[in-house]
């Protein structure tokens, strides 16, 4: 029993570290589309996979801790607010979406979209301007596309992890 708990702690720590590293890696790449908020969201790869291999509460912890760590380390107060809002919204939606007929890819796409919507919501409140809604079309599409890519990779990983777990 005890070794099982240690195993789990190690797993969660690894997931957080992985997500954190993805965030850092992404911050190094100048993703310059000329439009703010368009990110690859590589760290979400870990969150989506976590959603399918550990409990929801643990996956949520991984997501939140990663956001806090990443924002404090190489972000600023603003990136913390956006990431937190986008991350929580996308997690909540993905958690519910798991129960629907969507595949991992669909869940990830929905998560990507909601992540962007969450971020734009924060921006709209901070700026108290409705004009920011002009960014919605771009962000929706960006969320869909990045979610698709992340989802495809997530599915590959999850399928293999489940297989390894069964054989172990």
């Amino acid at each position: 029993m005890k070794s099982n708990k240690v195993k789990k702690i190690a797993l969660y720590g690894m997931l957080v570290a992985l997500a954190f590293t993805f965030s850092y890696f992404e911050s190094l790449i100048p993703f310059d589309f000329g439009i703010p908020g368009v990110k690859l969201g590589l760290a979400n790869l870990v969150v989506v996979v976590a959603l399918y291999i550990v409990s929801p509460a643990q996956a949520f912890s991984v997501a939140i801790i990663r956001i806090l760590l990443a924002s404090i380390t190489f972000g600023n107060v603003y990136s913390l607010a956006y990431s937190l809002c986008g991350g929580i919204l996308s997690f909540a939606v993905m958690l519910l979406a798991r129960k629907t007929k969507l595949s991992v890819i669909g869940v990830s796409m929905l998560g990507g979209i909601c992540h962007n919507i969450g971020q734009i919501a924060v921006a709209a409140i901070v700026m108290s301007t409705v004009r920011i809604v002009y960014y919605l079309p771009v962000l929706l599409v960006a969320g869909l596309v990045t979610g698709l890519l992340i989802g495809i990779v997530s599915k590959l990983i999850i399928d293999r992890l489940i297989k390894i777990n069964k054989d172990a």
Partner: protein
Amino acid sequence: MKKADFILIGIVAVIVIILLIALYATGGNSGNRVQIEVDSQVVETLPLDTDAEKIIKTEKGETNTIIIKDGKVSILQADCPDKICVHHRAISRTGESIICLPHKLVVSVTNDKNTENEIDAVA
């Protein structure tokens, strides 16, 4: 990918198209005024067709340099931490905007028709 995934893509595509129509079909394509807002207050309105360079300073002393050239407006320089506004591509159509979140600055392109309805901050 399952069928539900494609349905999701379809729904989002429809929403995006509706949004695009709703946002851009009103007011036409090319605007002719540049409106600069700081903290939701219009601080400056400039014509889009006149080349100009303007430094906007917020109360806290933060600066953004807005440049209008060849019928397009962009932010040349800013002392905000992320410089997203500086990297944003130049805009020229009504409804488009460049936003500097840390400075609460919004540079947008409007039509004369629209600005008439908005309250001028400066007489």
